[in-house]
């Protein structure tokens, strides 16, 4: 097995390197500069009866936030002819005036091997029961699996022509067999789809299957616009999602990121999988002050970011888009907002003239609330 071979390669490393690493000289945690600086400021300013208030709110705990927790999952980037093709219906805009956003503890964290560390059957049962109710199935017979890893189904249930599964506490998935018919004029049978075709289908689903999207005010999110390629031909993808729109800006951001309803279609263009976002956001760590998009961009330019992109950040002139999102993959121990920057990668031009746009993340919460921010988020460290 590959990883075992790699492990054995390390047996052949230079002996002197192995030797010098045998002992780590114990280190003591330094007093953070900010506390020293603040103590110094306090000492100086007390003399004139003024205290400079730059300290973090003691009621908000400092957070361990790393892009690379459990391997740094996530898309590295997208291919497109032009950045304007990359679309979504993110409720956050540059006009957003929010100064604080909630940070949540993931109540169902997994370790790096995909095993659930904490688990709440009651939550999962309730989520599955709720979604089954949308489809007219009351009191579904729920099965619990003994295995609690990403490869197994912790919670499942059956209904006529459908199976409910909840692999992990973020989505309830419903497999529809037989697939539900979509009229031919709306079907997307090719792998490729334009924005307009996809939006038309999204509108049809809303009217034809309202029970699947029981939201008072629905926002249609046709997102994507990126391309796949086999080197000869390129094809464009768009995806359909829905989220609930409210009067509350924060709630809209949370609904957009965590509580999305999505669909998958089979090769014939009929509806075969229905997914309902059910992330457990019951444990709020706190409402943290956030930086502006401009402040995040300055951090990005100074090398403070996380990314799976194939290139390091190559300069402000290559930024094509920015938005605020939450990273919601199941490997996150806490759910934190980020500014996401789409950056054209000048080295990555090819694949039938498609350009690559790398994704670069900067935490949106103020750095004084992030443990070891300078060391953890500085790309040169």
């Amino acid at each position: 097995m590959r990883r075992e071979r790699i492990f054995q390669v390390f047996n052949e490393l230079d002996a002197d390197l192995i030797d010098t690493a045998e002992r780590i000289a114990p280190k003591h945690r330094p007093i953070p500069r900010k506390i020293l600086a603040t103590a110094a400021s306090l000492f100086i300013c007390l003399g004139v009866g003024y205290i400079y208030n730059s300290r973090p709110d003691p009621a908000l705990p400092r957070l361990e936030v790393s892009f690379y927790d459990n391997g740094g999952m996530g898309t590295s980037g997208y291919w497109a002819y032009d950045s304007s093709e990359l679309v979504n219906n993110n409720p956050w805009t540059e006009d957003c005036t929010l100064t604080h956003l909630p940070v949540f503890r993931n109540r169902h964290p997994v370790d790096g091997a995909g095993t659930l560390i904490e688990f709440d059957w009651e939550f999962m049962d309730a989520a599955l029961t709720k979604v089954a109710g949308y489809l007219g199935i009351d009191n579904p017979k729920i099965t619990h699996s003994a295995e609690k890893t990403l490869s197994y189904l912790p919670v499942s249930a059956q209904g006529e022509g459908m199976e409910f599964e909840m692999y992990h506490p973020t989505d309830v998935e419903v497999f529809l067999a037989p697939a539900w018919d979509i009229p031919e004029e709306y079907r997307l049978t090719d792998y490729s789809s334009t924005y307009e075709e996809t939006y038309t289908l999204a509108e049809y689903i809303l009217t034809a299957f309202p029970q699947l999207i029981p939201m008072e005010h629905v926002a249609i999110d046709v997102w994507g616009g990126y391309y796949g390629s086999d080197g000869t031909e390129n094809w464009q993808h768009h995806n359909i999602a829905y989220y609930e729109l409210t009067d509350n800006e924060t709630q809209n951001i949370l609904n957009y990121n965590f509580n999305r309803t999505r669909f998958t279609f089979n090769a014939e263009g009929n509806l075969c999988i229905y997914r309902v976002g059910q992330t457990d956001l019951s444990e709020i760590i706190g409402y943290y002050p956030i930086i502006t998009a401009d402040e995040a961009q300055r951090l990005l330019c100074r090398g403070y970011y996380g990314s799976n992109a194939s290139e390091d950040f190559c300069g402000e002139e290559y930024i094509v888009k920015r938005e605020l999102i939450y990273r919601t993959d199941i490997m996150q121990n806490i759910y934190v907002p980020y500014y996401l920057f789409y950056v054209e990668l000048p080295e990555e031009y090819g694949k039938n003239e498609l350009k690559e746009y790398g994704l670069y993340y900067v935490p949106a919460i103020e750095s004084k609330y992030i443990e070891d921010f300078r060391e953890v988020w500085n790309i040169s460290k």
Partner: protein
Amino acid sequence: MDDKKIIELYFDRVESAITETAAKYGHFLHTISINILQNHEDAEECVNDTYLRTWNSIPPKRPQMLKSYLGAIVRNLSLDLYKKRFSCKRKEGEFALLLSELEDCIPSPSTPDKELENKEIAAQISLYLRSLSSEKRTLFLRRYYYCDDIKTLAKQLACSESKVKSSLFHIRKKLKKHLEQEGIYL
């Protein structure tokens, strides 16, 4: 006792060769094995097997560096026991995480000259490691040779687990780039 003298004891078939090996390298071997197996009895079994294998292989072998020779044996034995223990189950825990971290940065030797390629790759990794600061080099080796877990490393380096994880990620990423530049592709 000097490594040369210990090896001579093996060649002379003097049983104190094992006692001397244990005295000098017992802690080193046990640390590696327990990090992988997380179980004292299993680790002790692997370490004892290491002594036995060493006794049975020297002579004819005459290792240039006794410590890395022993280290290779105990790591392989511990890995075998780890696989045996988890053969029926999905592999869990820190060691599984460690293996998954390594997977992305080094290619798999698949030709009959597998052993030679292992050495070549290891030589390039050693070269790369020498370009790092001593702190980063130690961190990387403690994680991937000695198999320390993240929590222990964070404690020893007096920093957060996030910092350890991100430092390791950056080092792995740069290692990957270095191997690619040397013509070793993933």
